[in-house]
């Protein structure tokens, strides 16, 4: 596991990248207080830490987007100053970010070559010659889309592959990957891992930044842990365990989350879905969501889960099937309709779909609760005091870390932003709450809090539907889980059968599988 980690160093040559005691502050805030790490060629090096630990800052420094205040960065043992992204690129470093940027109207090949010098023939870009050069690299990485296809149709996973291809075309010697699997399904992630292993074998160094410790443990030879702007641990070999990483991230011992019981689930269905469908992603889906139940919805990205959630919430209209809410017919024509009927929805992309980033926490919280903070229904003027009380209660109940209720919500960390979106639905009792990837991009601590919050809501009698692409998350949180594949529900797991392995197996199987405890 650790054989090649220090191969380069044992041979006496310096690691590809060394970061030594790098510090950086912004105004009064110290983002980095002397971090060190090294990445050797042919190594996958993990970088973990809670949100705000300084990972992003280090990446920005490496990418030439910002300058360190102190410390050294060495490439091949030589001190370098990367003062622009172009210089960082010339040094052999390539960066693939969480939110991928690409130009939708252009072809795959044009996106790969974006901003790069291109072969020309008589002054005209010779795409055929370029394609001939790029095709083998794309093939090696596993890009299945034809190079002349429009990039608009690419899935997030394919986009990652396109970006890796781009890095290889640039002859990158170090690829920095920031939360690569955040938007990938388990199958796609597996494919990415095998490509990362290939990269490693061919001598490319990978700095792998992720919250997902399973992946870190599976892929990385060494792991550096950041906490509060310091590199607090470098783990390798037998020291490299989940327990050790978590303790280094948190700075103390962590208890295993309490396994839930499903005793309080009543038999009564809050939301019944029958043969619901909308081409092309949702096909004849039927299930019951019971009161007091946390129902998981697993499966691969693109299996149709988000599309199903949009039907339930009235964001799209079903073409077939029907629903009942507490026994009464339910056919929301818009999200506003669904809200009136007692549903709440926490969307997948909180920054884009969940929040008004420039507005305050209190403003964002109050949006679904305007009727509760006005003086009177007939004179709907907002009561500042009621709005404040609402916000302060949410901040306290959900332990939202913020300087004040008037803080623009865009300035909060990911976990706290997610809590705001969830909190919006708590003040007005919801019958059904649908959460789409509630813990994506959220740090370990906040994730545990969100899980606990979801279980508490169910304990109060709410019916909760949670979509998650992380198979390990569902058994912790849910009473029962459905697995979707290609628009259909292909598995139902509960009790002892509700395990990570079975969810993954069902996601891939595509075959109908029903197992009860």
């Amino acid at each position, binding site marked *: 596991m650790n054989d090649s980690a220090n191969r380069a160093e044992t041979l006496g040559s310096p690691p590809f990248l060394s970061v030594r005691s790098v510090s950086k502050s912004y105004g009064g805030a110290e983002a980095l207080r002397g971090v060190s790490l090294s990445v050797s060629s042919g190594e996958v090096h993990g970088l973990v830490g809670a949100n705000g630990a300084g990972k992003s800052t280090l990446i920005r420094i490496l990418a030439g987007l910002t300058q360190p205040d102190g410390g050294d960065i060495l490439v091949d043992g030589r001190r370098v100053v990367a003062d622009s992204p172009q210089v960082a690129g010339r040094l052999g470093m390539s960066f693939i970010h969480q939110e991928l940027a690409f130009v939708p109207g252009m072809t795959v090949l044009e996106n790969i070559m974006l901003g790069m010098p291109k072969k020309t023939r008589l002054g005209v870009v010779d795409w055929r010659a370029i394609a001939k050069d790029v095709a083998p690299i794309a093939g090696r990485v596993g890009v299945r889309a034809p190079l002349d296809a429009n990039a608009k149709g690419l899935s997030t996973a394919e986009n990652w592959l396109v970006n890796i291809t781009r890095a290889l075309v640039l002859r990158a010697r170090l690829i920095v990957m920031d939360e690569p699997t955040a938007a990938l399904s388990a199958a796609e992630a597996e494919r990415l891992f095998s490509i990362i292993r290939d990269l490693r074998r061919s001598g490319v160094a990978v700095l792998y930044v992720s919250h997902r410790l399973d992946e870190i443990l599976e892929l990385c030879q060494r792991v550096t842990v950041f906490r509060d702007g310091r590199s607090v641990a470098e783990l390798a070999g037998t020291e490299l365990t989940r327990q050790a990483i978590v303790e280094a991230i948190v700075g103390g011992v962590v208890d295993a989350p309490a396994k839930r019981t499903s005793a309080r689930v009543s038999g009564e269905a809050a939301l019944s879905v029958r043969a619901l469908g909308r081409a092309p992603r949702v096909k004849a889906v039927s299930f019951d969501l019971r009161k007091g139940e946390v129902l998981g919805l697993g499966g691969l990205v693109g299996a149709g889960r988000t599309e199903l959630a949009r039907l339930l919430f009235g964001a799209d209209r079903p073409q077939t099937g029907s629903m009942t809410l507490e026994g009464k017919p339910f056919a929301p024509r818009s999200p506003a309709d669904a809200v009136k009927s007692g549903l709440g929805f926490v969307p997948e992309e909180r920054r884009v*779909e969940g929040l008004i980033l420039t507005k305050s926490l209190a403003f964002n919280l109050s949006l*679904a609760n305007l*009727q509760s903070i006005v003086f009177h229904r007939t004179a709907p003027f*907002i009561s500042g005091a009621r709005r404040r009380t609402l916000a302060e209660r949410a901040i306290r109940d959900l332990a939202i870390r913020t300087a004040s209720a008037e803080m623009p919500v865009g300035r*909060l960390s990911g976990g706290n932003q997610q809590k705001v979106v969830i909190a919006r639905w708590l003040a007005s009792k919801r019958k059904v709450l649908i959460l789409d990837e509630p813990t994506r991009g959220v740090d370990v601590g906040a994730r545990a809090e969100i899980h606990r919050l979801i279980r508490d809501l169910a304990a109060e009698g709410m019916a909760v539907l949670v979509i998650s692409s992380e198979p390990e998350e569902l058994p912790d949180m849910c009473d029962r889980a459905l697995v979707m594949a290609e628009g259909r529900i292909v598995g139902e797991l509960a009790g002892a059968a509700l395990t990570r392995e079975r969810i993954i197996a069902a996601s891939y199987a595509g075959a109908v599988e029903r197992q009860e405890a």
Partner: protein
Amino acid sequence: MSDLPIGARRLSPSAKAGLSLFARYATILGLAAMIVVFSLLSPEAFPTFNNFINVLNQASLAMIIAGGLTLAVIVGELDLSIGYAASLHGVLVTGLIVHDKLPIGLAIAIVLGLGALVGLVNGLIVTKLRVNSVIATLGVGTIIVGLSFAYSAGVPIVAGVPEGFLQLALGRWLFGIPNPIIVMAVVMAALWALVERTAIGQEIQAVGGNPIAARLAGIGVDRIKILGFVISGVCAALTGTLLASRLGSGTTSAADSYLLTAFAAVFLGSATLRDGEFHVLGTFIGTLIIVFGFNGLNIFGAPTFSQYVFQGAILIVAVALSSLGRMMAES
């Protein structure tokens, strides 16, 4: 990881706070500086109570139409029909009174209703037919010009305008203050309260801030956008009516130039006190800056061309300040 957007930390917090503070108060400082300079240059004509009342009076019509436009831009749309609509409504209200002999109050009520109708049409085209609001309102505005010609054949309605209608804009019914100022104050206060203090105002702000998030939070986004257009339409009709009363005639294209003034005022306003966010108080200050500017140019007898230069330049400066503010808010 990347919870902070790129660029968030590029400036030091203190530098950012300073810059933001400057940007927020720059327009107000500009207004104050303008008043001081004009007062020094023309101590007997400019800084007098009468001139200030006069400027406010002039500003009132632009203020009302800009206040309405503010609602349209807060919900994230542009309304280019307001100038033409105001002209048409000016012609219509005079026509209804002079030709159709309708009581003044009824004529005004009809015209304000038609203003709401124009807004409703704009809103429906934008939300239901999914036509970009620039194109939709440009189209509706052009149709309105046509209707205006159809109604009046381009001939101003001058003769037979009753004194009662003229008194609407020229009278001083309360405390000796010109009526347009009173109307403007009421309209602006109502708009401000609507946006800043009511539940529907929160929805209006949410739709402007992020329509996707607003929709998924259960807000009827289309309904709110239509409301923005309707308010913009009613305010345009009100400005058109007051202008016809002030001019004593219904003239095609009389109010067309309010379009640019209103846009400049709204964008200047968005750079005022808040980082690039449209708001009613900002529009109030933005309009004052523009009207005081024009007033100063008039007092000094600046040639006509310079007024166009001023108007164009201030529009560009206003939009630039506004997007600068927004950039800083997002970083």
